[in-house]
């Protein structure tokens, strides 16, 4: 995966870059933090990783030629998160994204409404998903990204964003309707 943040060496940045970065990129710090928090599942670590990603984005800022600054930044955040996971928690990256799931009977909206109406429970269910499922859900439902933006950030081909989301939602539904004991045993 070669993001636009890679390739050429970092530049020496001046006050003008600093002002432009402050205006274009820094406003997306909350988005960066939220994505890192959900990929890494931990506030403590995501603070360091979000900071690292932000400084990394700054070093490569001259490679940003306008356009969607949020997607540009989130792509760097995501790459920084995965580098961190590979180094510190490689096991979490071992789930194949394309693994075939058995079709399940769909859950009734009422049952889901009850299961989903609980912040703790939703958080726990989201955290049982592999990071690649979790990130598309977070980008779509919490960050409001379009399929095009999700494709740019996660390097999934745009044609498969829809099915990636479908699988992620199915996973979340079954995590939510599992009994809590079962869910924690899987961890």
């Amino acid at each position, binding site marked *: 995966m070669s993001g636009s943040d890679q390739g050429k060496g970092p530049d*020496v*940045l*001046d*006050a*003008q*870059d*600093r*002002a432009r*970065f*402050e*205006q274009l990129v*820094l*406003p*997306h*710090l*909350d988005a*960066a*933090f*939220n994505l890192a*928090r*959900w990929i890494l599942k931990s*506030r403590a670590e995501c*603070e360091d990783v*979000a*900071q690292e990603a*932000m*400084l990394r984005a*700054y*070093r490569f800022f001259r490679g940003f030629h306008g356009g969607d600054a949020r997607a540009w930044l989130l792509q760097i955040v995501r790459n920084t998160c995965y580098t961190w996971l590979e180094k510190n928690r490689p096991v979490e990256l071992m789930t194949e994204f394309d693994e075939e799931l058995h*079709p399940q*009977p*769909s*859950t*009734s*909206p009422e049952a*889901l*409404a009850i299961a*989903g*109406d*609980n*912040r703790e429970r*939703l*958080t726990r269910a*989201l955290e049982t998903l592999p990071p690649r499922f979790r990130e598309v*859900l977070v980008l*779509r*439902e*919490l960050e409001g990204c*379009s*399929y095009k933006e999700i494709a740019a950030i996660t390097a999934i081909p745009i044609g498969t964003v*829809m*099915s990636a*989301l*479908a*699988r992620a*939602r*199915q996973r*979340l*539904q079954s995590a*939510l309707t599992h009994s809590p004991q079962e869910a924690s045993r899987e961890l």
Partner: protein
Amino acid sequence: MSCDFTRTVLHGYLDGELDATGAAEFERHLESCRECTTALGAEESLRSSLQRSGLYEGAPVGLRKKIRAGLDAATAPPDAIRIPAWRWLAVAASILLVASVSWFAWLRPARDSAASAPFTAAEIIDAHVRSLQPGHLTDVASSDNQTVKPWFNGKLAFVPPVKDFADEGFSLVGGRLDVLGGQNVAALVYSRRKHFINVFVLPTREPDTPIHPPGLRQGYQWRHWRRQGMEYCAVSDVSDSDLYELAQLLYQ
């Protein structure tokens, strides 16, 4: 129990990513497919749970500070010492040029679209959240506009209009200086049923606008408008109807 659409097109429909033809086709399909109808209901319920449960986690204030320090450290300092005296004039001229260019850049978006404010949503919310930290809400705490208004004298290049609307359910709590988009602004604080509303005020050269439709982000709402040479932005976690009510009172 095995409609293929349940795990494909249904999601594009849910996410508003189908084109008009695709969406119309799927709606026709929904009329005759119970499985998709049930699944769509479940997905909508799941979505609303995800969005209503406060799962979004914004960056802590301390992190923003640390990052700004890191950015400054990675920025080359202007090496003024090595500039010979005779070049100061040229430097001063170029600073003036930069200043006027950024002034222009600041105004530009406002000309392109009447709805745009000279600050971003993130900055407004940041400033609002910052003000809610203990001890940060007001520099002058008073419900008396005759106390709050003169307090701004000499602290800003303009004096914001200050009114109390306690009778209408919005009590003036006080005022403070704040910074939005690099500009010094006046912040007026109102309370509404124990919730605080920040109203940021700064001068503008742009013509009046109506009160723009609400913006929403991370559980905070804001309303923005321009009136008689002043730019206003009201932000809070109160409901939009409350916020709009205050905006209308201020607009009069």
